Structure formats: structure tokens, C-alpha cells
């Protein structure tokens, strides 16, 4: 028994594999944040007036929050205060004015993506994946735009969308996550530099998986991207984002906002594989991942599904949520969160049932190793008019070693007696009997553990597009490596 313990305890030895820095000249904003920074960013991006006005409103609101010292403090994470004047709010790789094809992209940058295992080339066409890549703050290349545009789908960087379809942006921006939503949403609204935009017209089933890769490269940079996805009546889209960052001793802030809008009978599937730099094993460096993600099932019978595999970041603070407004709408949240080393994750979801016959499902799998702390925090709220709302929640935690923590704090608020809610949670360590059973079939303890943990996460991985499910499994294995010498 003791042997097994020691073996399990030696987890978290695996080093971060995406921690290289790409040497590219960057166009950076001066450090610090004031109205001029915001005007500078907005001018740099040649934005319409309404956009600048919105940013400034957000900024002024954020300033009041700073003054009132209203950073969120309820999450189960701890970190030193962030100096918001010590961050670069805009950093773009210096490149040609406009990129027409991948040939024009800085080869150094393309090599970066290769190292990340993201070949931005024809292979992706075969794989049926359209890619938008955000490097530090700016969108680098969007593939397959033409093919998508045949279907009337717009998939481009947020900046481009702002130039080409300001009407759509103006109508929807902030409609799901207003700038006043929380401290980081306000900050993001003021300074966001780019992101992805996606519009699926009525009745269109998007033929490709849409993918965005995010990478933070420049030192002392914050990344503040903003994603907006609109699925018109009867449309469908599956969207995936991946993230990585170089290894640096100092912490970097990532405060993104994602807004999803699903109209009648539309479905949005949003998957995330988050592997930001988690810091070293003593907790130096790493990304602060403070993200606000929310979808609105605005139309009848619409569906929004969040799937996330969170293995990176020093601190994760993230609650992808669904407002179930349309009758018969469905919200889903599938999550795997792994913390090791000194990582802290406080993540979960909110399902707000507003419409009738709305249904939600929450499956959360937390794995804690090393000195990591993993918290599931979730809210299920059934509003008075949400007749026949249904929720099923299952959040399980697995503990590896005795230095880590696993915490579960669900909030269940029911204001309608026709609602039916079930919540189940279970916390345990990797079962000794299971390990022995695997050993008895010839598997080493390390392999057995990896197998058991992958099995534990299966229900979530199954929700990922196939090739990303493979990637997620590999990522989990990489992160769990080093259990047996």
C-alpha cells in the first residue's frame, strides 16, 4: 500500500512542453492603463466611434470598481494583488498590413504553431478544421474563410468583423456579458484587442469545426480577447479553442470574454482545451486565467453546450454559463480540470433556468495532484416562471497524494416547485482495488492510474470532437507523467 502511495505522490513531475518564446518583433502599447491607452488601442485598430465609446464607458466603470476595491474575492484562490499599471495591454506581431494567405505569415510564427502541433496548412483542410489564431492580442490568420463564406458563415477576427459587420457587433456586443458584469469583464471590455467572431446564418449547419488557437508570447503582456458567436435560427456550429503560453517567471494575466447567442432551434457547441503555462512546481510564473464565458439560449429549443479540458494556468477562474431563456432550451457543461504543482482552479458553471421546460446537465471531473487546489463552484437557479425545469449535476473529484485539495461548492436555488433537480458529488482517491485489479492484469501502477483517470474523464472527453478528444487524452497523460521512475 505504501509503495502505491509513494508512486502516486511523485506525480506532477512533468514539465511544461509548450514553454518556448518566439522571437518576433512586436508592436506594443506603452505599459499601463488610462484613457489614452484605450484611445491608442482603438485608433490602432481603426475602430468605429461606437466601439471607442463603449470601451471608455467600460473603462470608467472599471475605475469605479478599482476604487471600491471590488476585485472578486469569493473564489477559493489566492494570489498577490495585480498591478494593473504594470501590464502591456496591446502587443501585435509587426507584420505586413494585411495577410492574404498563410504564405505571408511570418515564418517564425508558423514554426511556433508547428511546435504547438498546430499546422496551419492543407492538412487542416483534410481534417475539416478552420483555424483562427490569436497571437498575443492579434488575429494572425483565418483559414477557410472563402469556403465558409459560401455558406454565408462569417468566421474572422474580431477586428475584421468590426470593419466589415459593425452592425452585427453593435447589436450583440455586451448583450450576454455586459461590461458591468464583473471586474474582469469590465477590464476586458475596455482593453480587448482582438478575438474571434463567428456568425452562422439561418438554417446553416457549419460544415467545419471552427478553431481558434490563442498564444501569449510577449513578456509582461496581458491577453484580453473577446469572442462573439451568433447562431441564427436553426443553425449549428461547433467551435474549439486551444491555448498555450511560454514559460516565464512572472505571472501574466489573461482575461477573456466569450459571448454566445443561440436563436430558435440553433445549437452551439463550444469546446476548450486550455493549456496555458501553469508556472513551475514551486508556483513561480504562470497565467492567471480569469475568464467570463456565457451563452444565451435566446430562442426556443436552442442548445448551448460547453466542454472544457483545463490543464494549464497558475490560476483558473472560470464559469462558462448558460442563460436558458427560450422555452425548451438546453444547457450543458462538461468539464475536466486538472491541478498539480501549485495550480489553483476555481471553475464550474451557472445554469439559469428562465424559460419553460428548460433542461441543463452538468458533469464536472476534478483531478488534484501535487499541491494543487481544485474547486468546483456551480450555480443552478430555477426562476419562478421556469416550469418543468430539469437539472442533473454530477461533480466528482479524484485526489492524488495528500498535499492537494478538492473542493465542491454547488449552489442550488429553486424558486419553482415544478422543477426537478438532482445533484450528486463524489470525492475519493484512485481506488486501491481498481489499481490492484489492473496490476493483476499486468499493468504497471502508472499505466493503471492513467487508464483509470482517463476512464474517470471519459464522459467529458466523449463530448469533444474526435481529434481533440485524442489531444485531450494525450494532454492529460503528459500532465500525469512521472508517477513511476
Amino acid at each position: 500500500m505504501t509503495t502505491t502511495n509513494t508512486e502516486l505522490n511523485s506525480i506532477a513531475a512533468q514539465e511544461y512542453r509548450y514553454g518556448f518564446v518566439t522571437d518576433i518583433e512586436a508592436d506594443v502599447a506603452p505599459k499601463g492603463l488610462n484613457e489614452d491607452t484605450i484611445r491608442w488601442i482603438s485608433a490602432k485598430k481603426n475602430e468605429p466611434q461606437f466601439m471607442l465609446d463603449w470601451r471608455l464607458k467600460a473603462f470608467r466603470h472599471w475605475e469605479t470598481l478599482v476604487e471600491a476595491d471590488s476585485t472578486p474575492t469569493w473564489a477559493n484562490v489566492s494570489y498577490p494583488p495585480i498591478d494593473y499599471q504594470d501590464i502591456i495591454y496591446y502587443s501585435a506581431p509587426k507584420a505586413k498590413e494585411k495577410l492574404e494567405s498563410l504564405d505571408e505569415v511570418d515564418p517564425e510564427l508558423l514554426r511556433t504553431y508547428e511546435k504547438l502541433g498546430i499546422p496551419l496548412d492543407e492538412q487542416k483542410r483534410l481534417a475539416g478544421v478552420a483555424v483562427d489564431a490569436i497571437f498575443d492580442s492579434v488575429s494572425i490568420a483565418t483559414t477557410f474563410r472563402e469556403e465558409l463564406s459560401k455558406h454565408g458563415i462569417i468566421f474572422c477576427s474580431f477586428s475584421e468583423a468590426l470593419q466589415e459587420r459593425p452592425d452585427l457587433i453593435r447589436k450583440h456586443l455586451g448583450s450576454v456579458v455586459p461590461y458591468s458584469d464583473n471586474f474582469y469583464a469590465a477590464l476586458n471590455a475596455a482593453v480587448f484587442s482582438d478575438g474571434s467572431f463567428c456568425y452562422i446564418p439561418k438554417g446553416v449547419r457549419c460544415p467545419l469545426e471552427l478553431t481558434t488557437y490563442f498564444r501569449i508570447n510577449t513578456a509582461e503582456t496581458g491577453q484580453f480577447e473577446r469572442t462573439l458567436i451568433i447562431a441564427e435560427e436553426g443553425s449549428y456550429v461547433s467551435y474549439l479553442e486551444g491555448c498555450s503560453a511560454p514559460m516565464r517567471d512572472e505571472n501574466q494575466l489573461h482575461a477573456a470574454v466569450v459571448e454566445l447567442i443561440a436563436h430558435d432551434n440553433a445549437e452551439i457547441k463550444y469546446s476548450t482545451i486550455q493549456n496555458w503555462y501553469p508556472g513551475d512546481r514551486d508556483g513561480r510564473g504562470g497565467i492567471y486565467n480569469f475568464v467570463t464565458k456565457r451563452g444565451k439560449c435566446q430562442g426556443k429549443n436552442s442548445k448551448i453546450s460547453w466542454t472544457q479540458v483545463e490543464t494549464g494556468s497558475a490560476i483558473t477562474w472560470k464559469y462558462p454559463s448558460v442563460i436558458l431563456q427560450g422555452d425548451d432550451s438546453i444547457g450543458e457543461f462538461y468539464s475536466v480540470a486538472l491541478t498539480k504543482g501549485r495550480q489553483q482552479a476555481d471553475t464550474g458553471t451557472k445554469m439559469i433556468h428562465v424559460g419553460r421546460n428548460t433542461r441543463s446537465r452538468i458533469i464536472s471531473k476534478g483531478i488534484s495532484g501535487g499541491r494543487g487546489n481544485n474547486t468546483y463552484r456551480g450555480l443552478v437557479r430555477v426562476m419562478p416562471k421556469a416550469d418543468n425545469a430539469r437539472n442533473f449535476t454530477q461533480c466528482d473529484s479524484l485526489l492524488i497524494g495528500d498535499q492537494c485539495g478538492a473542493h465542491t461548492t454547488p449552489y442550488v436555488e429553486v424558486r419553482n416547485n415544478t422543477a426537478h433537480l438532482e445533484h450528486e458529488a463524489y470525492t475519493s482517491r484512485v481506488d486501491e482495488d481498481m489499481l490492484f485489479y489492473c496490476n493483476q492484469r499486468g499493468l504497471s501502477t502508472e499505466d493503471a492510474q492513467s487508464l483509470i483517470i482517463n476512464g474517470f474523464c471519459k464522459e467529458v472527453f466523449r463530448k469533444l470532437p474526435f481529434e481533440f478528444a485524442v489531444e485531450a487524452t494525450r494532454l492529460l497523460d503528459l500532465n500525469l507523467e512521472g508517477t513511476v521512475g
Partner: protein
Amino acid sequence: MTSIATAGVTPFAADLDSLERDGFSQDPQWIRALRKDAMSRFNSLGFPTARRGNEEWKYTDVRPIAQAPLRLARAGEAPEPTASDIAPFLLGDGSWPRLVFIDGFFNRGLSTPLGGQEDASVLSLAGALHSRSATARESLGRLAPYASHGFTALNTAFAHEGAFVHIPDGLTLEKPAHLIFLTASREGHTVSQPRVLVVAGAGSKAAVIETYGSLTGAPYLCNAVSEVAAGPGASVEYYRIQRHSEEAYHVGTTQAALGRDARLDSFTLDLGGALVRNNLNALIDAPDGSCALNGVYLATRSQRVDNQVTIDHAKERGTSRELYKGVLSGRAKAAFHGSIIVRKDAQKVDARQEDKNLLLSDRAEANVKPAFWIYADDVKCGHGAASGRIDEGSLFYLQSRGLGEEEARNLLVQGFVNEVIDKVKRPSVRSHVAELVKARLKEL
């Protein structure tokens, strides 16, 4: 409206000063020092009225309490109750040790205390502060932390009247100790602050029942604090039966500490109260301690009932089981906040927690927050929560067997709570609880 907290020094501080000069003046020095310290804590804490960042009181807004023109109850301000007044609250036969408190004051005439120095004793706390000073001092104010809890600080600041139950090592309290706290004042806005100290020595056995109730329709606050110390191998049954009027505010904190191999069986029944908040905390601070904490709450009209149950597994091989069920009708609102903490040394802990709510009306509300805080790896912890209305399928099944809808509904509600009531360990308490529940369900 100015809340007490912002006033700096509360009106209660002056009350304490005058009591210390008068009724409390003969008390031992240690309790006077304790009260003084608690008063200064309450002066700085006030009531937990903040609505932002106040996770512990998220679902319980105590501003109605903080804003009420509360005053300390005076001895004898209500007419002397008769035996028939208190008869509805009694249980067991006349041989049970019983202490009755009216508006917080010990009523000798209605009570049957127990105890000699060497035996198990059930005594008035005010007397025990003198006769059992050493035992009382060891635990009183030591278990229930008042440094960060306004209500506990306020109770501790006036710790004097109350009950003292002591079972020396190896002894068994043959009959359950029944402690009855009734409010009778008709003037209203009184504060009574019962204090209970239960000290169960190594290997001892005891059962303690606290009953809270009203002999008046006037509003009041009952702010109770109970401390239960279960020594190594001790087995304690702890029952709380809350039957206040629907005008009453009740805040009750029970803090139990379990020694090695100790066992705590608790059952809480909430029937009355306008605003009720119970904190039940069990600290399992030695190996192999175990507890079962169960409860039923029934609420209707505009009642607010909030149960916070925390089990702190600090040492290895502890076992805990929790089952709470609520039935809500009208615009009643209930909250259940159950926390299980498993600390680093608490390997091989097995904990299970469950809360279920049945909502009988479309305006009733149930908020549930079952939380885990786990720092040990070799543990088994589970929790479940469910909220919903009566299952239509079951209803139809019963109706198809000839039962009227109303009858079928009652049967199902009864069945829903019976699962918890069946867990009440002592038969006499179980049947008492079952009767009270049955009667109250008719009013829901």
C-alpha cells in the same frame, strides 16, 4: 436605518454592565472575564447583515433582526406559567430530568433537576457556575467560537442562565435530559439567550433534548448557544425540537466536539419561527469519531428556515452521515448549507451528506449549498441534493389504488419525511417527533 454594527457600542453593552453589578456579580471571575471579552467582540462584529461577500449568510438576511427594537427579557415579565401551559411541550414520563426556562430564566417550580457531585447531573447553569465551576470552565465558551460570530458573541456576553449537563466518565444518564426554553412575554421584542453546556465524560452515555417554543404571539429573538463535549468513547444523542410561533426569530448554534471513538447522533426538527437559522457544527478532532446529523424542516407562509451543518473531520477514520429533508409550502424559503471539511490528517474518512426538498407550492423556494473542502486523499465523500415536487407518477399510483388525491398527497409527503424520522434513535423521541410532524403537515 442604522445597524447596530455601525454604532460601535451596542445598547446591550450597558445591559451587561448593569447585570455585572447586580445579578451576575456573584459569578466566578473567569465567566465575568469571558462575558466581557465576548461583549467587546459583539460590539465590533454586530449582526452579520452584510449582503455582499457574506457567503455564510448568503441565504439568510438577518436585517429584520438587526433592525428590530430588541431588548433583553426581564425575569418575571410574563405571568407565571402553569403546568398545563407547558404540558404540550413535555415528553417522556415524569421521571425524566427536566429544566424549564421562561424568557430565558430558569423556573425552579416547573423543573426536576438531577444530580449529586459524583453522579450524572442536569442542573441550572447559573447554579453550576458556582457548584461545578471547574467543569464548566473547561468547556464553556471554549467550543463555540465567538470571535467571528456575532450571534454567538452576543449569547456568550450574557452567558449565565441555561442548562448544565454533566455525565462523569463511564456513567450513563439513564433518562434523557429534557431542556425546555419557552418565551412567554407579551410585550414583545425580547431577547432570550439560552446557553447549554453538555459535558459527557469518557465512555459515558447521554441523551439531551432541547425544546424551543412560544407561550405568546408577540415577536421575539431566541438566540441560543449549545456546547457539547463528547469525551473519548462517549455516546451522545442530541435532539433539538423547535416549535416557536411564526412571529419568532431564532438563531441557534450548537457546537459539538468529539473525542476518540466518540459518537454523536443528532436530530433537528424545525416547525416554527418567522426567521430561523441553525448552525450545527461537529468537530471530530480525534481518530475514529463518528456522527449522524439528521433533520426535518417544515415551513409555510412566509417562514424562513436556514440550516447550516458543518462536519469538520480533523482526524483519521471518522465517519459522518447527514440527511436533511424539507417540506415547503406557501412562500416559505428554506436554505441548507452543509459543509464537510476533511483536513490533511483525516485519512480514511467516510462522509455522506444529503439534502432533499419537497416544494408543495409554486412560490416556495429552496436553496441548497452542499460543500466539500477536502485536503486528505484517502477519503470517501459524497453528497446529494434534490429538489422537486410530489412525483405525479406516485400520486397516480396511489390514486389508482383508490386513495383520494388529498390523502395520497399527504401519504407521499409523510413518506418523504419518514425516511429521516425513522433514523431518530430513541423511540420515545421518535414517536413525539412523528406526531408533531404529522400535525404540522396538516397546516402546510
